[in-house]
C-alpha cells in the first residue's frame, strides 16, 4: 500500500486514514446491497454488535492487541451470531426481527461486560480496545490496510464470480430453488459477505455504527439507479466517498470516526431521498400535486359543461352546490380555467368559451374511451401487452383502435341481450 500512500496528495497519516476509509466504504457499500435488498439491513447491525465480544475474547486469549488477531475473533463471533439468528429463525417460531434483536443485544452486552473486565485488569496493553465501539480511523496502521485490501478484493471477486446465482436468489428465491440453486446455502453465503464487510470496517467505524456503512450507500445508490449490476459499483463509490470524507473530518477534529461518517452518510441519503429524479420525495410530490390539480380542473370543467347543458349558466356557488365540491376547490379550478381562456363571465354567471367547450368535450371523450377500454379492450386483440396511457388513450392506441372501441361501447350498450347469448354459447 506504500505506493498508494505516496501517490496521494496528503500527509502520511491522512493518506492512511483516507485509504482505510475508502477500502471500508467500497467493501461495505458493495456488500451491504445484499442486506438491504433482502430487507435484512438489521442483520448487518446484529453482526457488527456480535463482533465486539469476539474482539474481547481474542484479546483475552492471546493477550496481544494485534489487529489481525482481534479481527479474526470478530469474524468468528460474527459467524456464531449469524448462525444463531438463522437457527432461531428456522427452528423456532420466533420471527426474524425478534431473532435479530435477541442476538444483537445479548452479544453486545457480553462484549461490554468483557470490555469492562479487561479495563479493570489494568493491563497496560488494553488501552484502546474501546475504539472498537465507536471506531478510530486515526489509529489505522499501514499493515492494517493490507489486511483490509485483501479481504475486500476477495469478497468482491467472489461476488463478481457468483453474481448470477446471487442475483437470482435475491430476486426470486422460489424460482432459484426450482432451477436447482442451493438457496439456503446462498443466503448463508450472503450473510458471510456481511461478516467480511463488518470485519473490514470494525476498527474504523466501530461496532455500534457499522450498520450505517452497510445501509447508507445501498439506499442512496438505489435512489439513483435501477439495475443491480450498476447498483453494486455505485454503492461502493458512494461508500468510499462517504467513508473518506467522514474519516478525514474525524481525524482532524479528533472525534471518533463512526459518528462523523454516519452524519456524512445521512446527508447523502437525505439528499438522494429528497432529490433523486423519478424516486425522490420532492420529484414525486411535485408530480402528485400536478396530477391532483389536473384532475380537479378537468372535473370542474366537466361539471360546468353538464350544468350549462342542463340549464342556465351557474354562478360559482351554484356550481359548487351542483357538483358537491368544496367552494374553495371550485374557485381555484375556475381561476385556472379563466387563465387558460376557457371561461366567459357574465356578471356572476359563468359560460364556457369555444375553447372551453372543446376542452370539456375532449375530457368527456377521453373518459368514455377509457371506460370502453376497460370493458371492451380485450376484444381489440392488441398484438402485444401495451397498456395505453389513461390520460391520452387515443394517442397511445391510434385512431383505428379508438374508433373501434367507441363502436364496441355503443354496440355493448344497445345489444346487451345478444352479448349474453354469445357468452352462454362459449
Amino acid at each position, binding site marked *: 500500500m506504500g505506493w498508494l500512500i505516496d501517490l496521494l496528495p496528503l500527509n502520511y497519516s491522512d493518506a492512511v486514514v483516507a485509504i482505510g476509509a475508502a477500502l471500508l466504504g467500497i467493501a461495505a457499500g458493495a456488500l451491504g446491497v445484499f442486506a438491504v*435488498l433482502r*430487507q435484512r439491513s438489521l442483520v448487518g447491525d446484529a453482526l457488527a454488535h456480535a463482533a465486539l465480544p469476539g474482539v474481547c475474547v481474542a484479546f483475552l486469549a492471546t493477550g496481544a492487541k494485534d489487529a489481525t488477531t482481534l479481527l479474526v475473533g470478530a469474524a468468528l463471533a460474527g459467524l456464531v451470531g449469524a448462525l444463531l439468528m438463522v437457527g432461531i429463525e428456522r427452528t423456532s417460531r420466533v420471527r426474524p426481527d425478534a431473532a435479530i434483536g435477541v442476538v444483537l443485544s445479548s452479544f453486545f452486552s457480553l462484549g461490554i461486560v468483557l470490555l469492562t473486565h479487561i479495563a479493570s485488569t489494568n493491563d497496560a496493553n488494553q488501552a484502546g480496545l474501546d475504539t472498537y465501539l465507536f471506531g478510530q480511523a486515526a489509529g489505522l496502521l499501514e499493515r492494517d490496510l493490507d489486511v483490509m485490501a485483501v479481504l475486500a478484493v476477495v469478497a468482491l471477486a467472489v461476488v463478481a*464470480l*457468483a453474481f*448470477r*446465482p446471487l*442475483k*437470482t436468489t*435475491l*430476486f*426470486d428465491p*422460489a*424460482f432459484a*430453488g*426450482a*432451477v*436447482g*440453486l442451493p438457496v439456503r446455502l446462498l443466503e448463508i453465503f450472503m450473510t458471510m459477505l456481511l461478516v467480511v464487510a463488518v470485519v473490514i470496517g470494525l476498527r474504523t467505524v466501530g461496532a455500534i455504527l457499522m450498520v450505517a456503512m452497510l445501509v447508507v450507500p445501498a439506499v442512496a445508490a*438505489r435512489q439513483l*439507479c*435501477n*439495475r*443491480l449490476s450498476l*447498483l453494486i459499483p455505485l454503492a461502493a463509490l458512494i461508500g468510499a466517498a462517504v467513508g473518506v470524507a467522514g474519516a478525514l473530518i474525524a481525524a482532524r477534529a479528533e472525534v471518533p470516526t463512526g459518528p462523523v461518517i454516519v452524519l456524512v452518510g445521512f446527508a447523502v441519503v437525505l439528499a438522494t431521498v429528497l432529490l433523486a429524479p423519478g424516486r425522490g420525495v420532492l420529484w414525486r410530490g411535485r408530480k402528485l400535486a400536478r396530477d391532483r390539480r389536473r384532475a380537479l380542473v378537468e372535473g370542474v370543467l366537466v361539471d360546468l359543461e353538464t350544468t350549462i347543458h342542463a340549464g342556465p349558466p351557474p354562478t360559482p356557488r351554484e356550481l359548487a352546490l351542483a357538483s358537491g365540491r368544496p367552494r374553495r376547490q371550485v374557485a381555484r379550478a375556475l381561476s385556472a380555467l379563466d387563465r387558460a381562456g376557457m371561461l366567459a363571465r357574465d356578471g356572476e354567471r359563468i359560460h364556457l368559451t369555444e375553447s372551453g367547450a372543446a376542452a370539456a368535450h375532449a375530457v368527456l371523450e377521453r373518459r368514455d374511451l377509457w371506460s370502453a377500454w376497460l370493458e371492451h*379492450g*380485450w376484444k381489440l386483440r*392488441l*398484438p*402485444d*401487452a*401495451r*397498456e395505453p396511457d389513461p390520460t391520452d388513450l387515443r394517442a397511445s392506441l391510434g385512431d383505428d383502435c379508438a374508433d373501434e372501441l367507441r363502436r364496441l361501447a355503443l354496440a355493448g350498450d344497445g345489444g346487451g341481450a345478444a352479448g349474453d347469448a354469445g357468452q352462454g354459447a*362459449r
Partner: protein
Amino acid sequence: MSAHQDGGPPTAGRGAGDRAPALEIRRMTVSYGARPVLWDVDASFPAGRLSAIVGPNGAGKSTLLKAALGLIPADAGQTLVEGRPVGAARDRVAYVPQRDAVDWDFPITVREVVEMGRYAPTGWFRRVPRRDAALVDDCLERVGMGDFRGRQIGQLSGGQRQRVFIARALAQQAPLLLMDEPFSGVDARTEASILELLAALRDEGRSIVVVHHDLGTVRGAFDHALLLNVRAVAEGPVAEVVTRETLARAYGAGADAVGRDAGEALSWAG
C-alpha cells in the same frame, strides 16, 4: 446436459397415451405443525395436455406445486418428472411462482428477468451466448412484451408482470410448465391472451399444469384437472372432474361454507 435436443419441447402430434406422465406426484403429505395441508395426494398430469389444479381457498393448491418441486419440506411424498425424480430433471421443468412472491421494486429490468431463464441451461458462470440473447427477445415478443425490455419491473402493471414471468419460463425451454395462480389479479385481457398462449404451447407438445382459482374458466380452457381439498378429491378429464357431485365433495355444498366460486361452478357443471 446435452442429451435433450436443444431443450426444445418434445415432438408434437403424438397422443398422450404413449408418453410417461409429464408430472406424477405420489403420496404427497405436507403439514404446518399439526395442521395437515396436503394428505396423501396422488396426481398424474398427462404429457402434452393443459391441466388445472383447482380447489377451495386453503386446499393446498400452491403448496402442492412447491412441495412437488422441493421448495418447501414435505413430510412424505415423491415427485416424478417424465418418470424421473424431480431432482434429476430440473432442466425439464419451468416454474412460474406467484407474482407477489417477489419484490417488484427490485433493481432489475424486464430483459434481465427473462434472461434468468437461460442461466441454468447455459451454466451459471458462463457468458450468455448470442443465440440465447435472441431467444430471450423471442420469448419477450411471444408474450407481447417486446417493447418493454428495458423497463424497470416496478413500472409494469400486474398483467405485464405476469407476462414477464411467463416469458422467463419460456426462455427455459422446458417441456413442462408449472404455474402458480397466473390469473389472480390480472385483467380480463391478459387472462384471455395468456390462456390463448397456453393453448398454443400445449399444441406444440408442451405439458402445462396451472394452479387456478376460477372454476368458471376451467371447463372451457383446460383438458385435465385435479380437484384438491387437502386430499385429492377427483382427477381426470375436466368434464369428469368438474361435476356437481365432485365439487360438492371438495367445496362441501349444502354446508354454509359453500363459496361463491363453488356456486358459480355448480351452475356451470349443471
